[in-house]
């Protein structure tokens, strides 16, 4: 009687342990699905694109033949775009974060701004494109220009920068702030000389990640009219422009197979730029 009971219990325990082990394998396998996909993606892009990736590809403008097509206009366009996005989004984003963390009273308005920023972060990027189309392209009459694209993208990455900067500012220990006040420093002096330097690594890391999102973003720029083919480098804020993802999108959409390889080569350049930016972010995070 007792023996069968014990046998039953042991059986059940064995079953439970077995189930645990089986599912552990299943969980591990699921985790690898994402990783395998990532590896496959990188492998495919590399093997397809490497043949077209050479000096000419970097320095050529778009062309009607795959052998002559290059990403120069897109690369320069992306860099110029970031040149607009970065100062606008950083000043406004960090300013917002300082305001919310250091100046704002904890009242309904502050809460409203906070919730609003959270919701903005969840708005699909293409909706920002529509905002940019109405406001920058038509209402401010910028047309399909670099500045319209840059400002649209700045609004898009703003919530990400605000949240990152807020977290960085919040994590500055209160005692060094109090020490600064205790020495007679005013509020702004404390923020400028104590809080911001201490929060800088966090702010920079978040900002670089946000900017790398802006570099890879395509949809809103299609809406605000980034060109698919231009043959001169933009020489002013009101020039036509193109960016790397738009070029890649354009090449991907062409039916002949060679264009796929060109697109893959473009993706390699795009990913290298992103990799560089992320490496800088990681470096800053580890350094400070």
């Amino acid at each position, binding site marked *: 009687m007792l023996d069968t009971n014990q046998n039953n219990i042991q059986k059940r325990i064995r079953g*439970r*342990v077995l*189930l*645990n082990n089986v*599912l*552990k394998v*299943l*969980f*591990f396998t*699921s*985790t690898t*699905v*994402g*990783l395998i996909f*990532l590896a496959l*993606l990188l492998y*495919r*892009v590399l093997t*397809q694109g490497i043949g077209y990736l050479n000096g000419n590809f970097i320095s050529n403008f778009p062309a009607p033949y795959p052998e002559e097509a290059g990403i120069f206009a897109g690369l320069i366009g992306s860099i110029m775009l970031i040149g607009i996005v970065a100062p606008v989004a950083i*000043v406004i984003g960090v*300013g*917002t974060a*300082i*305001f*919310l963390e250091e100046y*704002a009273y904890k009242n309904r308005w502050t809460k409203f701004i906070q919730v*609003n*920023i*959270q*919701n*903005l972060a*969840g*708005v*699909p*990027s*293409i*909706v920002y494109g*529509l*905002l940019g189309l*109405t*406001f920058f392209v038509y209402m401010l009459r910028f047309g399909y220009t670099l500045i319209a694209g840059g400002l649209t993208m700045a*609004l898009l990455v703003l*919530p990400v920068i*605000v949240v990152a900067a807020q977290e960085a500012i919040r994590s500055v220990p209160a005692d060094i702030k109090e020490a600064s006040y205790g020495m007679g420093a005013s*509020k*702004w*002096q404390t923020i400028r000389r104590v809080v911001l330097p201490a929060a800088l690594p966090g702010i920079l890391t978040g900002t670089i990640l946000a900017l*790398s*999102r802006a570099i*890879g973003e395509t*949809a809103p720029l*299609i*809406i605000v009219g980034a060109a698919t083919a231009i043959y001169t480098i933009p020489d002013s804020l009101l020039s036509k422009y193109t960016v790397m*993802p738009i070029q*890649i*999108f354009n090449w*991907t959409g062409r039916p002949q197979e060679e264009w796929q390889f060109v697109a*893959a080569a473009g*993706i390699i350049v795009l990913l290298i730029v*992103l990799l560089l930016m992320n490496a800088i972010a990681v470096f800053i995070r580890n350094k400070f």
Partner: protein
Amino acid sequence: MEKAFKDETIDLDVQALIDNKRKKKSISGKIEKLVPAFLLLCASVSVLTTAGILFTLLRESITFFSSTSIFDFYTGTQWSPWSGHFGVLPLITGTLLITLIAAIVAVPLGLMSAIFLSEYASNRARKIIKPTLEVLAGIPTVVYGFFALTFVTPLLKSFLPGLGVFNALSAGIVVGIMIIPMIASLSEDAMNSVPNNLREGALALGATKLEVAFKVVLPAAFSGIMASIVLAISRAIGETMIVVIAAGASPALTFDPTRSIQTLTAFIVQGATGDTTFGSTIYYSIYAVGATLFIFTLLMNMLSQYISRKFREEY
């Protein structure tokens, strides 16, 4: 005489110092007052952005609905704007189909990854795997689109010969893979914040790790997990480039994943890139579609925030 002279210089110095100090103080006093005003201006940009989005979508949609009835728009089953049929249902079902396929792929895989990372993986393994998985989230969506079109579709075609070049299945799967890191990472954060003594209590009672995960950690982290899933689904609804590249541009009232479809987002791209002129009906229809998309994602985001507020377990 000498003494007086000395006094004078000291007097002069002090006066200058005082003046200097006053001047500095008045400047820094002004800065102290100006800075918060400037920062408030910065903070108002985000509020203005929201107002701008609402205003644009609303204004252009209202113009659109003055020529097309809002009832026909939301109940119409034919979307062919260039021949004057504005029934948005095919775009909505297209979006839902993509979202559904993405959720079927991403929810189980994401949750199981999260459980593995939080309950089974060693600290070292987690430190390597989690950031690698998050790389997936940093890859531009146009790259995913390229991959869906040139790799996933041909691959699926070898199993499903009837699959079109553009189809919902391939796009949906890739959107799903794109949102895996979102679910995995956020859910893992939620599970990680469940205090260890709950786990240890269950383990001490003889539970296996699996039982701890399903009967202790998952219920305790429920709100965070649900919020992450809803947020990821909202991302899938708003995803544009993968769908534009891999799912084609043929609006169809169908749930057949092997066919080409069009989503709300994909139409906005098509409508904005074609030779659409400012002020035409198609131009305004982009905004009506955009407003519909915005409402969908806003509801999902609010649901996510509501879940994480309402069902949060505090320890």
